[in-house]
């Protein structure tokens, strides 16, 4: 007699469009120039990081300023897999996720004792500690950093196939592979978050965010949910870090654990776009990319503009750009509302 549905027209359209986009995205290397592929790689990896951070802060209430710890450890683990264990870089990427997961356990144990601003700063300090420890890892170059050896970068799994498929040079094949992996990752992460929000866990997350006390009183284990979200986020961040640095082929502690690149810009993307929505980071990463492409050649003026835009958006559109749009239009591209359908029920979204 009663039914639960999360379907809306906008949601269905989005799903179909997304499917189309992903297929187009997979086929893109056949048509697009390397420049486009590389730009997309950047966009996709930043989007992945942004979605993950949004899951943490926007849905889980965990404002971490230490995500660079997981990017960095993931990247270093990948390098270790390649250089020390002689693995193929593609197989070393999951090692990055694993390393981040392992690091997340003590981090969570420590950081969950802290609240709010303390939590933010605690995670930052842990990331610093990780950076300083990794900087002492002499076999991977210590503070100097290290580069992926040529024989590793030229033998990446699947690049031969891609070269044959698109008849491109080796470096371009590597780009395409990395791009595909980034596409898969972003789809998995975004899809995973979307699925999570539509699952029981999503309800629990919202409940905890709205009212911890009440959430406990209906049986939600707030602590376990925070752990789960934090660990998942860390592992996914580690994978992304490994992928990013596979593409760079060079690593150093300062680069891998850069708070500005891997956390501050990511926060910028999420908050400018609209925190607590899946649409927000997507919009945010586009804004960020456009700003960067348009202004990056202006050196310090670019960064100054970026800073001022962050301030302006917070003053005039505290819910981000997607917040403005959805408030006006009521649009939700990724509906997570569970609606009860049946007789005698009114009320829309």
């Amino acid at each position, binding site marked *: 007699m009663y039914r639960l549905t999360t379907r809306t027209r906008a949601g269905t359209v989005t799903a179909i469009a997304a499917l189309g986009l992903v297929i187009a995205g997979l086929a893109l290397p056949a048509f697009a120039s390397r420049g486009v592929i590389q730009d997309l790689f950047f966009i996709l990896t930043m989007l992945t990081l942004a979605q993950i951070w949004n899951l943490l802060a926007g849905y889980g209430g965990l404002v971490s300023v230490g995500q660079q710890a997981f990017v960095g450890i993931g990247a270093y683990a990948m390098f270790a897999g390649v250089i020390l264990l002689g693995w193929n870089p593609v197989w070393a990427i999951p090692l990055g996720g694993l390393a981040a997961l392992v690091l997340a356990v003590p981090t969570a144990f420590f950081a969950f004792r802290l609240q709010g601003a303390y939590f933010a700063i605690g995670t930052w300090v842990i990331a610093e*500690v990780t950076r300083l420890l990794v900087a002492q890892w002499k076999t991977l170059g210590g503070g100097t950093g290290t580069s992926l050896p040529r024989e590793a970068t030229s033998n990446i799994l699947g690049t031969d196939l891609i070269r044959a498929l698109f008849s491109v040079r080796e470096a371009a094949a590597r780009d395409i592979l990395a791009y595909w992996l980034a596409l898969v990752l972003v789809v998995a992460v975004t899809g995973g978050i979307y699925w999570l929000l539509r699952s029981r866990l999503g309800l629990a997350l919202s409940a905890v965010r709205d009212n911890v006390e009440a959430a406990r009183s209906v049986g939600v284990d707030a602590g376990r949910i925070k752990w789960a979200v934090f660990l998942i986020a860390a592992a996914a961040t580690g994978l992304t870090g490994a992928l990013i640095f596979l593409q760079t082929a060079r690593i150093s502690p300062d680069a891998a654990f850069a708070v500005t690149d891997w956390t501050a810009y990511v926060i910028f993307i999420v908050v400018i776009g609209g925190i607590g929505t899946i649409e927000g980071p997507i919009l945010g990463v586009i804004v960020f990319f456009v700003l960067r492409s348009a202004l990056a050649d202006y050196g310090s003026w670019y960064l100054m503009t970026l800073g001022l835009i962050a301030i302006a958006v917070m*003053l005039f559109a505290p819910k981000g750009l997607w917040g403005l749009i959805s408030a006006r239009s009521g649009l939700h591209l990724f509906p997570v509302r569970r609606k009860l359908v049946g007789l005698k029920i009114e009320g829309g979204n």
Partner: protein
Amino acid sequence: MIWLDTLVQGILLGGLYALFAAGLSLVFGIMRLVNLAHGDLIVFAAYLVLLGVTMLGLSPWIAALVAMPLMFGLGWLLQTVVLNRVLGKDILPPLLVTFGLSVALQNGLLEAFSADSRRIPAGALEGASLDLGLVTVGVMPLLTFVSAIVVIVALNGLFYHTALGRAFRATSDDAVTAGLMGIEPKRIFAIATGIAMVVVTIAALYLGMRSNFDPSIGPARLIYAFEAVIIGGLGSLWGTLAGGVIIGVAQTFGAAVNPEWQILAGHIAFLIVMLLKPRGLFPRAVD
């Protein structure tokens, strides 16, 4: 002997960190504002003092005195025009705004002053030292430490023995009820940020005389300042000094073992304190 020296130098270094942190402590304590631009504001103030020295030919001390009211005004404006509008239960908006400010400030300074490493000249004081028998200490670090204590005593006096300080504490406890007492929380916040900027100027003076600065060095010190504030406990100024000293001593002892451990030891000291006392050494009864 060497350990005593290490201890003394660590304590003196803690004075510098406490100076960096005192302004932050005030602002963080009163309005829970995580100001990511604090380090850059210190650098900004250092340039202001430097301008006074190079352009007006003032002594650094006088230049700092001149810079103080300017910085107070800047803090007031910053709080009134920007920060007051984003303060709230959610820590993110101020986080992003101050991050934006930090980036904008760093690059604005770069445009204005170039990447050259600069320094506030302190003349003979730079190398001057005092032989205390067992240890030899630099006059400048000693002065820094004494200034940190003076700043903290002054802020404490202000905080606990004046009507303004009472308003600070009341607003910090409960801004809404403070409003019912006729206190405008936003005005109080603006004054607090102004005062924090005066302290920032003092920190800038010592930072600039101790070593070189350039537009990019702000963030490196920010994290120590936060650690000092948090170790001490929200709103406890003496706690902030203690926090600075703990980090300073941990750093010098870490370095004495091996310089590789210097910075790490400071952070680890912070983590240990947080593990044992998640609300800091001298937490307030209620926050």
